[in-house]
């Protein structure tokens, strides 16, 4: 082999290296191929926009009662009119307006509860994974305790004593659902902790906050995002369930769970009344879950399996 041909193969591999897509480009390609992620993201963005611009979108005041127009059918029903596209509830309030305002409550509670539980779970999980030993034993014990408590029951009991309001529901849910954050981030941190770059940082004398924020957290952030979406969906479902049982968001706030609960008395005659808020809830949770699954697929090479 002459020197020239060796140089040629060298430049060929260089060229290949240049032409090969960067990790970011690869990820964008994977996102473009991932339809369920796109569907989930679109629905979620639409719901967030709906929540932000609720006051411009609603045809009526969601709290305004009109007792002469009670239980009007939606547009596809026999007595439906365009004035109330989704009909009215038992107090004559416009169902579409309440549905739109309901997205604010679902997203707000889901996001805030997820944030609280995320902070608690991340601190516990990262500390257990990073320090190991006794710290890990104690934190794993705390996680075991939390897992053995029935969430719905404890949430109901606490809310009933403290008094139910939007803020109480957020705090109680946030304090209860951090377990998955802790479990997942613990094992993710354990993996990253054994990487050579962490050992290198330790040898260089980096302080442990620096290692955690610069080396560990960036490398477990994909797990964090995936759990965050799952837990946000979980919190939204729990809030709806609590409100449905009358121990969550209180009337007249338009929570979707509360709307289903209020429509329960009429569901045999007017099934659309439970269908409409139920479908909204289902779509929102589905969108968040699809987004979370999608993020996991595009950020981890092994993906679904």
């Amino acid at each position, binding site marked *: 082999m002459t020197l020239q041909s060796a140089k040629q193969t060298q430049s060929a591999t260089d060229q290949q290296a240049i032409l090969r897509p960067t990790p970011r480009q690869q990820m964008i390609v994977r996102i473009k191929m991932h339809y*369920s992620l796109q569907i989930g993201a679109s629905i979620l963005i639409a719901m967030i926009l709906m929540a932000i611009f609720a006051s411009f979108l609603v045809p009526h005041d969601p709290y305004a009662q009109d007792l002469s127009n009670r239980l009007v059918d939606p547009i596809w029903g026999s007595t439906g009119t365009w004035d109330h596209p989704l009909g009215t509830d038992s107090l004559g309030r416009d169902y579409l307006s309440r549905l739109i305002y309901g997205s604010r409550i679902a997203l707000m509670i889901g996001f805030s509860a997820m944030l609280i539980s995320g902070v608690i779970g991340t601190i516990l999980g990262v500390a257990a994974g990073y320090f190991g030993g006794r710290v890990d034993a104690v934190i794993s*014990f705390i996680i*075991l*305790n939390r*897992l*053995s*408590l*029935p*969430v*719905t*029951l*404890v949430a*109901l*009991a*606490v809310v*009933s*004593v*403290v008094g139910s309001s939007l803020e109480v529901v957020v705090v109680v849910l946030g304090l209860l659902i951090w377990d998955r954050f802790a479990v997942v981030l613990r094992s993710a941190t354990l993996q990253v902790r054994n990487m050579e770059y962490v050992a290198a940082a330790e040898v260089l004398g980096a302080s442990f906050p620096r290692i955690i924020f610069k080396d560990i957290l960036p490398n477990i952030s994909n797990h964090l995002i995936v759990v965050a979406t799952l837990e946000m*969906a979980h919190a939204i*479902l729990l809030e*709806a*369930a609590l409100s*449905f*049982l009358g*121990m969550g968001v209180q009337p007249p706030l338009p929570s979707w*769970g509360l709307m*289903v609960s209020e429509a*329960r008395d009429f*569901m*045999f005659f007017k*099934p659309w009344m*439970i*269908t409409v808020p*139920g479908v909204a*809830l*289902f*779509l929102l*949770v*589905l969108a968040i*879950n*699809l987004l979370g*699954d999608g993020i996991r697929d595009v950020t981890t090479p092994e993906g679904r*399996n």
Partner: protein
Amino acid sequence: MLMFAIKRLGLALLVTFTVSIISFSLVRMTGDVATAIAGEGATEADIEIVRQQYGLDRPLSVQYIEWSGKILHGDLGQSLFFQRPVSEILAEKLPVTLTLGLLALGFAVSLAIPLGVLAAVKPNSLIDRISLIIAVLGQAMPTFWFALVMMVVFGVILRWLPVSGSDTLAHFVMPAIALGYYATPAIMRLTRAGMLDVLSSDYIRTARAKGLDTHVILFKHALRNAVIPVVSLAAVQLGFMLGGSIIVESIFSIQGVGHLALISIERADFPVIQGIVLVLAVFYIFLTLLADILNGWLDPRIRIS
């Protein structure tokens, strides 16, 4: 094996102890129990009498020791509303909830394992995609809403099943499905992943090379090994179901522990509430203990690590 079992048992007992403290302090931390018992419109003097009558004026540690001492003798205290021992009421209600939980688990397992196996045998086939869609949709469906929709469709429109009560097995069909479907996706994914793992192993290749019948390979060699982690997941899910039955029981008017919990919360019947929290937590702790020991027995790799 014995050491492993003893270690796990010790941990379970320790968790039981801390959980008993949590369920004891839960109601006390969040509000004044005496005020709750005395009811609305009670004067300061009334509350003081209640406090003395129930021994609530003594230090919390004394109250806890007395309470836990009684529990060791099987005495969970006296219900404020029923004026009967809590253990007696629970003994009446537990069989109903256990029946519901086991039926729900039976439903989840009998749907999830075949789908998981089929999905693993033909990855990325139509059946794999359909089972994935079932999993994604199932996880987004709010339990209470799914229960109500089933009630309208199968109870009222088609009139196939009774909508409330717990007298016959037919009464349990819809509640068991409503409670069980939520566990289906998790069991299915784990079965699929386990089967994929096992099917790519050397001994399956040997079995295939020997010319063994595909059914024998699948059910005798592969499924047995793939199902080990599923057993422990199923035990954990049963624990979650017992805690989550509160919503389903209240919708279908099943007189089980969940229903009891809800009415006791509404009546501030705190001895019953803390009794239920404790009993459900202990169930969960011992189900996971059983699962771990079973796993360790079936799979020697677990008990060594």
